[in-house]
């Protein structure tokens, strides 16, 4: 089972019926010159890349921008149509007065599989106690959290909120809560490693390409910023394959990771086993 743990379905045509919604999404997400694509196209690319399932991430920006990049209901709509291809996460704006109720609905009624939060875009520090009821709700339902971490390409999204250092207290106080700090928290790769060494409930993903080619960047991160054996020895169960589609094309990133000299066992973990553990489907 190959899982892409980081996909933003903003151009899935199932949820692109309204041009004004699409414009809002494009501006808030900061991605341009792309058009909606059909399920057939999405599946063609997944088949070509030998990717079985993708985790779909919404984002609730109600108090910051007056809407959602993708809403929980839109995620539910996609999942209902294609349950074998996609795994749907929820999102909630922590500043909403009804934040906990929104999350309760997402888990209890919409049956979504986890929570997506973006501290940079939603403008909160992860260790702000405002978030504690939200983390409690995830713990209650045994649902993982996918946090944005590190640099964000989105407009009005400050990296200071997404420094790994702000996640440590969450990892300490919620040791049962599985949390992924996406994008290897680039450029804070060392800080990301620091958290993963100490906290086994902390995961990261590979959805990063901030300069150069896929091959160059993956080699820089996994062979130069860390020693070639570092991931194999220390983080074999904490790094998930994630693409950040539609910013990057999943099969190209996947190929660059396949080219790295990891053992087959570790590659199996990266490409699916760790995502299943993160989702709570494989203890």
């Amino acid at each position: 089972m190959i899982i892409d743990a980081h996909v933003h379905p903003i151009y899935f045509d199932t949820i692109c019926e309204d041009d004004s919604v699409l414009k809002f999404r494009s501006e808030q997400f900061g991605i341009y010159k792309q058009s909606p694509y059909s399920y057939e196209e999405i599946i063609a690319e997944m088949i070509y890349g030998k990717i079985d399932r993708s985790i779909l991430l919404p984002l609730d920006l109600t108090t910051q921008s007056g809407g959602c990049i993708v809403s929980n209901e839109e995620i539910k709509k996609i999942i209902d149509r294609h349950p074998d291809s996609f795994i749907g996460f929820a999102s909630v704006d922590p500043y909403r007065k009804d934040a906990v109720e929104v999350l309760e609905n997402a888990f209890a009624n919409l049956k979504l599989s986890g929570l997506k939060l973006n501290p940079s875009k939603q403008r909160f520090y992860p260790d702000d106690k405002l978030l504690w009821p939200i983390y409690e709700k995830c713990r209650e339902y045994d649902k993982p959290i996918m946090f944005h971490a590190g640099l964000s390409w989105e407009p009005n999204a400050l990296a200071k909120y997404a420094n790994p250092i702000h996640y440590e207290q969450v990892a300490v106080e919620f040791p049962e809560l599985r949390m992924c700090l996406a994008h290897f928290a680039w450029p804070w790769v060392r800080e990301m490693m620091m958290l993963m060494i100490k906290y086994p409930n902390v995961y990261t993903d590979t959805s990063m390409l901030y300069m150069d080619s896929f091959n160059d960047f993956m080699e820089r991160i996994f062979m130069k910023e860390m020693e070639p054996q570092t991931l194999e020895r220390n983080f074999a169960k904490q790094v998930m394959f994630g693409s950040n589609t539609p910013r990057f094309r999943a099969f190209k990133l996947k190929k660059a990771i396949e080219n790295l000299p990891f053992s087959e066992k570790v590659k199996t973990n990266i490409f699916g086993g760790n995502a299943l553990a993160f989702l709570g489907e494989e203890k």
Partner: protein
Amino acid sequence: MVKLVPISCMSKQAVQMINITEEVHKIVAESGITNGMVAVITAHTTTGITINEPLECVETDILQRLEKLVPDDDKYIHAHFLPSYGATSNNSPGHLKSMLLGNSCMFPIQESRIVCGSAQHIYLVECDGPQTRKVYVQMMGE
């Protein structure tokens, strides 16, 4: 008379030759244009239009030669974040293969049919798939 008909094609590979001959011939036959010219033009910068013989071995040689001329893992400058897209460029091989192939082909139309050799088939060559592509069939004549 001038007539424009778009064709939509979905590729399923990163690099793929898609034979669109039959479709183009049908469009010309149904266009109402008896004598003139037809141009087949791709709407993209990472696809090509080429004419060649529809033999599997020829197609394989074309694709393998393209790969040798423009290897995927070479060091390209078009490999960085593009703010105007909000995405990272990483498809230079597609652009270069497209440049080698060209973006169009032309044939005469006579008695409502394309005039061409029996081996001359029309290919849309995908160089950065899989994706849905658009090709324009532009006919001019009387």
